[in-house]
């Protein structure tokens, strides 16, 4: 790369950082344009990496610390303050890991507390996470405040019991029945705890990783999942 070109790229990157993309987009030469854009992306990444450090400095000052941006950090901390010892793991950016014992009270509080007001259970599902553990996951959303969190509750297979939230979010009724149907997590306090999609007398829970299809069902041969392509 010639020195001329390098200088040109540096100039354009500075402009790009200031938000003037038109000039960069107007470059005829595709190679040069690519180089400029790559340099711009690199500069932006560097700027981003530098930014959080400054924030930390601000937080260390004795004045009011600004609440952290990530909802999982913020609401996880609120839950910990209100229900001490209910978190099963440290706070992180993607989800809040809770213990199953007082989930019902926490869920009730999450819905009724005016600053949180999670009035919508968007999605509920379960997962076989291996090592003899099953996990229930709740995606909560607040229509009024427009914020969103994911809650995970892990239980062991031998004692797969989680309090039901069916009376808090009415859709929990069907969602929890489906999770029970597919993974065999029992929801305690559910008023209509039956299978949802499979027949009542089906054996096993299909979405567990070690599930094996039963040979016959009422004398009908059950087709196996085929391995690979035929």
């Amino acid at each position: 790369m010639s020195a001329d070109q390098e200088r040109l790229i540096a100039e354009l990157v500075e402009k790009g950082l200031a938000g003037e993309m038109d000039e960069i987009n107007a470059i005829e030469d595709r190679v040069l344009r690519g180089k400029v854009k790559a340099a711009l992306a690199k500069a932006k990444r560097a700027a981003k990496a530098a930014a959080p450090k400054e924030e930390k400095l601000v937080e260390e000052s004795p004045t009011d610390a600004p609440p952290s941006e990530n909802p999982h950090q913020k609401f996880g901390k609120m839950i910990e303050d209100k229900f001490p010892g209910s978190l099963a793991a440290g706070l992180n950016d993607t989800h809040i890991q809770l213990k199953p014992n007082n989930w019902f009270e926490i869920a009730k509080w999450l819905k009724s507390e005016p600053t949180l007001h999670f009035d919508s259970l968007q999605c509920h599902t379960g997962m076989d996470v291996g090592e003899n553990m099953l996990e229930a996951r709740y995606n909560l959303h607040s229509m009024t405040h427009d914020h969103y969190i994911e809650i995970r509750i892990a239980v062991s297979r031998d004692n797969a019991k989680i309090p039901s939230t069916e009376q808090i979010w009415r859709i929990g009724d069907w969602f929890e029945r489906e999770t029970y149907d597919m993974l065999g997590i029992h929801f305690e306090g559910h008023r209509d705890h039956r299978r949802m999609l499979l027949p009542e007398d089906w054996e096993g829970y299909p979405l567990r990783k070690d599930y094996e299809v039963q040979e016959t069902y009422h004398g009908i041969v059950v087709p196996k999942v085929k391995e690979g392509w035929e």
Partner: protein
Amino acid sequence: MGVVHGEEMVLNIGPQHPSTHGVLRLKVKTDGEIISEITPVIGYLHRCFEKHCENVTYDQVIPYTDRCDYLAAMANNFGYVVAVEELMELKVPEKVEYIRVIMAEFQRIASHLLALGVYGLDIGAFTPFLFMLRDRERILDMFEMTCGARLLYNYMWVGGVSHDLPKGFVETAFQFLDYFEPQIEEYNNLLTHNKIFVERTADIGVLPPEVAISYGVSGPNLRASGVQWDLRRNSPYSIYDKFEFDVPVGDGGKGTLGDCWDRYYVRMLEVRESVKILRQALAQMPKDGDVHQALPKKIRPPKGSIYSRTETPRGDLGFYIESDGSPIPSRVKMRSPAFTALAVLGELAGGWMMSDVISILGSLDIVLGEIDR
């Protein structure tokens, strides 16, 4: 004379019944002609979508999503690829985004036309159904022109779409829109303000907004209850933030807010908004660009999970995808809007007459393929 106590009778509607829109069984407890309790029984169309997903690669899931909501297959493709792309942090070319929006909005019109027409059919109005199906046919022709399929497209791929728009598509699309817009007025004259239709739908099956939110009801059904919530507006995905359109909500025009007529009419209004979006998208779409340019060689999202939502004709379609870093998803959960819409039926239909149950069920616009998966 004392009060006469009738005996309660348990009645099955379905699984094979023309008014259940698929294989759905309704266990109905009746007291004479009044419904005292109604329990939907589902699972007759269960095809193990989520189990299949754990055995195929990410791109092989797309044809399965077609078969979930088979009346809005484009919208389901869209929801899934948006989720995978978000997980991979993949950016798709602008032209692809435009094509996707155009397809999704045409699909919305097609799906709503069928929903409205069949709803009329449920109530006993045969003619509007034929009119709406005739116009839906022209949209399907356009899909066929683009990707060769009329119902199940497998059109949207992770990172792109399967085919570029064919020559003459934009002109055909504009011709259709010019033809179609005056037709909406005709539907209104035929069905919307028809006295018999209004009598059968207004003030019936009222869904209050709090109940709707608690049941996770979304899309037109939620908006008919007066809640202005549309993912295309409230948390825009793809390029929906570039277009101007209104989010119509119910206002109890013929009766109470959130009744069957409102749910019907919100869909009719939405068709108009889709036309608006289509006109903007077709005009703004970049002329050239390669739709296969951003296709990844190997779809291998990083370890992690994502819950991504898109607005299909039926409401919020969510995909919860867990990736373990391999080319095969570790778990795919589909949160389908029709599932939550059917869950609310038990609450809605209690206390109404037998004939009203059909009217309420039709107004929810469910697709059993998506409920049972």
